[in-house]
């Protein structure tokens, strides 16, 4: 079969696609990498409150260089701003927001997501020397919804949507929805359900790049609400 016709999403397009599904009023934590870029694609007219692990609620975009405040960074250690209505809290209170189920959404990058919602995003093997977990396990276990945004396969073409994670887990059964450069997929009790595919891509082509068996989602499913 020909595979020349489909157009995988760029990293920016993936971030843009995630942003589409975030409604006004949600409290959202964005992980490092593509997830961080999601904030740039939420229209300014739509109020979404971004949370950062280091005690910032109501985080705004990066400042102009001349306005940079050395005391105001995000969890990725990048300089940010505070929106009107923002507030500062200490780390235990910040993680109370995460762990207490107060975040409507967390968007993380990952190495692998399994069809039962297991996610691996912090260590590439059990023997990884000194892996760094940060707040990933807290976010995955604590947020009301966990969405993952990642490339559909590794650089070598190995699938990242798998029957069972091979890498050490971040959390069990936590993922609701996966956004890749090839598709948007919900995690359902029956496994991955394809919500949409990159333009020109066929279901068979997507399945060929996916370890776990796929099915098409019901057309009326809400974003990430089926799991």
């Amino acid at each position, binding site marked *: 079969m020909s595979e020349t016709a489909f157009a995988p999403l760029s990293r920016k397009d993936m971030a843009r696609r995630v942003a589409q599904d975030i409604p*006004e*009023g949600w*409290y959202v934590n964005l992980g490092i990498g593509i997830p961080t870029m999601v904030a740039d694609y939420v229209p300014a007219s739509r*109020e979404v*409150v971004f*949370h950062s692990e280091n005690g910032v*609620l*109501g985080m705004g975009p990066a400042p102009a260089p001349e306005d940079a405040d050395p005391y105001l960074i995000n969890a990725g250690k990048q300089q940010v701003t*505070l929106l*009107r*209505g*923002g*507030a*500062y*809290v200490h780390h*235990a209170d910040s*993680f*109370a*927001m*995460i*762990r*207490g*189920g*107060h*975040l409507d959404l967390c968007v993380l990058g990952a190495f692998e997501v399994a069809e039962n919602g297991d996610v691996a995003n912090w260590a590439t093997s059990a023997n990884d020397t000194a892996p760094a977990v940060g707040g990933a396990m807290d976010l995955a276990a*604590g947020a009301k919804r966990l969405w993952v945004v990642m490339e559909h396969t590794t650089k070598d073409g190995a699938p990242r949507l798998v029957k069972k994670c091979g890498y050490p887990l971040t959390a069990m059964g936590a993922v609701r929805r996966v956004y890749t450069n090839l598709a948007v997929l919900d995690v359902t009790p029956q496994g991955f359900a394809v919500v949409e595919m990159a333009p020109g891509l066929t279901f068979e082509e997507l399945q060929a790049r996916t370890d776990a068996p796929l099915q098409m989602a019901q057309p009326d499913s809400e974003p990430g609400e089926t799991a």
Partner: protein
Amino acid sequence: MINKIVRDMAEAMQGIPDGATVLVGGFGSVGQPDTLIDALIEQGASDLTVVANNAGTGRVGLARLMELGRVRKIICSFPRSAGSVVFEELYKAGRLELEIVPQGTLAERMRAAGAGVPAFYTPTGYGTLLTEGKPTAEFCGKMCVLEQALPGDVALVQAHMADRWGNLTYRRSARNFNPVMAMAAKLTIVEVDEIAPLGTLDPEAVATPGIFVDRVIQLPRTAA
């Protein structure tokens, strides 16, 4: 635009079901959301479990809610105080369940609910009537009991100022249980004296960030 400020009390109290666990802020009368309690009386929900430090005084507010038979159970640290006549009548008549919880354990159980801690150990109350039957364990030579998180379906909170995102400040010791209950409930309803324009509350001094708040209603200004 996020706007948690509701227009009237009916909107504020909408959807509180029978059987709900209602956390009621305040310590004695200070910081107690009197107007919201009256609105709950009006709203009609019954078979309630009320969590509050005290069990009401006189025959108004919380005491009135109990007298109307709308409260099945009260969880508190200090039920009997000067003027808690309704509580005493109902309790003696066997018409009110009572769970007495040490005040710090009460606060910590709600903080735990808000912070995603389903249970924790504490030495408070070990070896006393109030912890009989609870699991125990020893830590660093101290015997402790296992206490469970105490989440609310609804929290009724009194604060001083709020903005439209639901950020709150309090007045002095009127803070008390209010921020803890705000974080422990699924639906947090707040009465405030003043609405502040967004961005005017000091972000270093917000005592309850808006993430813990669902609805805010401004009290009518009273003559000073």
